[in-house]
């Protein structure tokens, strides 16, 4: 029997290894499609189809149990997010996790698509696990700096004190080139994913205005089923989406030379981040993914991103302002034999308009392959969408709609034909001849 289980274990180890080594850059996020036996979760895509709600995924997005009512020991509030007539009036309750029925932000965003909303929405919305939370004190930056500038300059001064910053030549620059994916053993600390915290804990990190904006999003996603995901409408992803789970921002292609280090990733849209070594910030207008400068201290890459366009993480998380800046470090991660396996990354977020204090998160990115890999490709993503808000709800338009854009069907010609060729005697070629021939 033990040998049998060993065999099964070997197989699943092989499975995991193959997933890890999959040639596609988003393969490491396949955990979002995980299966299990407890709880209801978000909608994933397995085997290439759009799947019904999955249960008990091993990581964050869907892992917590669903309770039809308050879990043992919990008493429902008289008014909560799902019964409120005006959430703005409930601010005093926002710090109580029962107001959100102990759902994580991710569970709120998935309320309707996962079935958590129940049969009598919105009042029948399910409860989450009230014991799940990631400590606030671990989210707060452990450093004494008040601004990114102060932080970066302190690190730069420390490097100078040691004779740095390190200046590499083309021959000596660290060889980090390759394809990377997030190390999922870090998922239990990824608070930016919105999967491991009670909503009030996240709210406690925000200033009052940004608390209000987050609860507004919680309400309209969880109660009104009116999600406004960036990718639905091909909005820009926005800077902090690099740290969200589903964006796949952390599964990147890395190329580097003496002057710049480039991270390219994306799923619904492209994330292009370039660290300009030894440069200064020069862009005066906020950029969607900011402007990043950096320096080397030995084999540690230190970066400072500023000039970021304020936006939203979406998915029932929070917005950030134009004042967001980050200081990030990338350090080589080595195995027991001293072999390079990836990068240990830390990001410290400074946004005095949105956050009550600097925040931080760490992640390890594992290098799955070098750039010499024969089959990996970065496919540039053109976000194409026919979703539009109709009566406030994202709605998939079809060819029957005037607003539908047939991206692959010469949409420019469609416009001319509709407005300038009406009534013309033209060949009728709506249905391809190959189809008509089937029944000849």
């Amino acid at each position, binding site marked *: 029997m033990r040998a049998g289980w060993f065999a099964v274990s070997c197989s699943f180890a092989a499975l995991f290894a193959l997933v890890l080594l999959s040639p596609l850059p988003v393969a490491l996020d396949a955990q979002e499609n995980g299966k299990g036996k407890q709880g209801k979760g978000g909608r994933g895509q397995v*085997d290439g189809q759009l799947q019904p709600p999955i249960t008990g995924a091993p990581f964050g997005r869907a892992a917590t149990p669903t309770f039809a009512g308050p879990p043992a020991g919990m008493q429902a509030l008289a008014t909560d997010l799902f019964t409120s007539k005006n959430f703005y009036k409930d601010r005093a309750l926002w710090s109580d996790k029962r107001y959100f029925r102990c759902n994580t932000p991710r569970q709120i965003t998935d309320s309707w698509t996962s079935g958590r909303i129940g049969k009598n929405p919105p009042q029948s919305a399910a409860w989450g696990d009230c014991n799940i939370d990631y400590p606030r004190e671990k989210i707060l930056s452990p450093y004494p700096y008040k601004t990114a500038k102060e932080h970066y300059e302190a690190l730069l001064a420390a490097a100078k004190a040691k004779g740095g910053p390190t200046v590499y030549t083309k021959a000596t620059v660290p060889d980090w080139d390759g394809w990377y994916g997030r190390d999922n053993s870090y998922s239990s600390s990824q608070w930016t994913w919105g999967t491991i915290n009670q909503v009030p804990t996240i709210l406690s990190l925000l200033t009052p205005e940004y608390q209000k904006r987050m609860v507004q999003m919680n309400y309209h996603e969880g109660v009104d089923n009116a999600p406004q995901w960036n990718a639905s409408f091909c909005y820009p992803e926005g800077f902090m989406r690099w740290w969200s789970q589903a964006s796949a921002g952390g599964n990147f292609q890395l190329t580097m030379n003496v002057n710049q280090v480039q991270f390219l990733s994306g799923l619904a849209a492209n994330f292009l981040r370039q660290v300009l070594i030894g440069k200064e910030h020069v862009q005066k207008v906020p950029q969607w993914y900011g402007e990043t400068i950096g320096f080397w201290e030995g084999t540690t890459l230190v970066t400072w991103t500023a000039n970021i366009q304020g936006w939203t993480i979406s998915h029932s998380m929070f917005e950030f302002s134009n004042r967001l800046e980050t200081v990030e470090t990338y350090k080589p991660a080595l195995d027991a034999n001293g072999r390079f396996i990836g990068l240990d990354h830390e990001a410290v977020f400074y946004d005095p308009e949105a956050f009550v204090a600097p925040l931080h998160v760490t992640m390890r990115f594992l290098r799955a392959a070098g750039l010499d890999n024969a089959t990996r490709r970065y496919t540039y993503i053109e976000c194409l969408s026919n979703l539009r808000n109709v009566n406030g709800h994202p709605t*998939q338009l079809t060819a029957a709609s005037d607003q539908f854009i047939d991206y692959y069907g010469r949409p420019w010609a469609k416009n001319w034909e509709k407005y300038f060729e009406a009534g013309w005697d033209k060949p009728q070629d709506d249905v391809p001849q190959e189809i008509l021939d089937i029944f000849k």
Partner: protein
Amino acid sequence: MNQRALRTLAMAVPLALTLTLFVTPALPHHSFAMYDQTKTVTLTGAAKQFVAQANHAELHFILIAPDRKGLAKGPDGKYIEWGVEMAGAAAVAQQGITAESFKVGTVFSVKMNPLRDGSNFGSRVGAIAKCPVDPATNKPKLPEADKHCDSVPGATLLGGNTF
């Protein structure tokens, strides 16, 4: 390792490999709230266009009449077009669903959760069944009335083992 373990291994490895194929990429890049997940419709039609979008590939097709003797037409006398959304083009390509395998005129059946607003579009559920092609005529072998491609001997299932 004893014989039993080897037998188990022999069964488990293919299972693991199969699952590997199934969990390979593709995350939802938009909400699916617009689809009615309580309903599943099964349709058979002829491929008009494979839209190889990175985020969500689509198959557009002309509906075949339930008697399978011609293309279906609506009350307005026009042919009826449907579309089905799937995972990203790279993910479905691993299942053999590509512009090449779904050339114009390819007859197939698919199950989907339809749009809540009643429009002719849905999100794919389960495998796609491709009707076989008669080598003598180079035309698809169509199912009997009210049946789908999975019922035709020689049909191919893509993206799943059952229809």
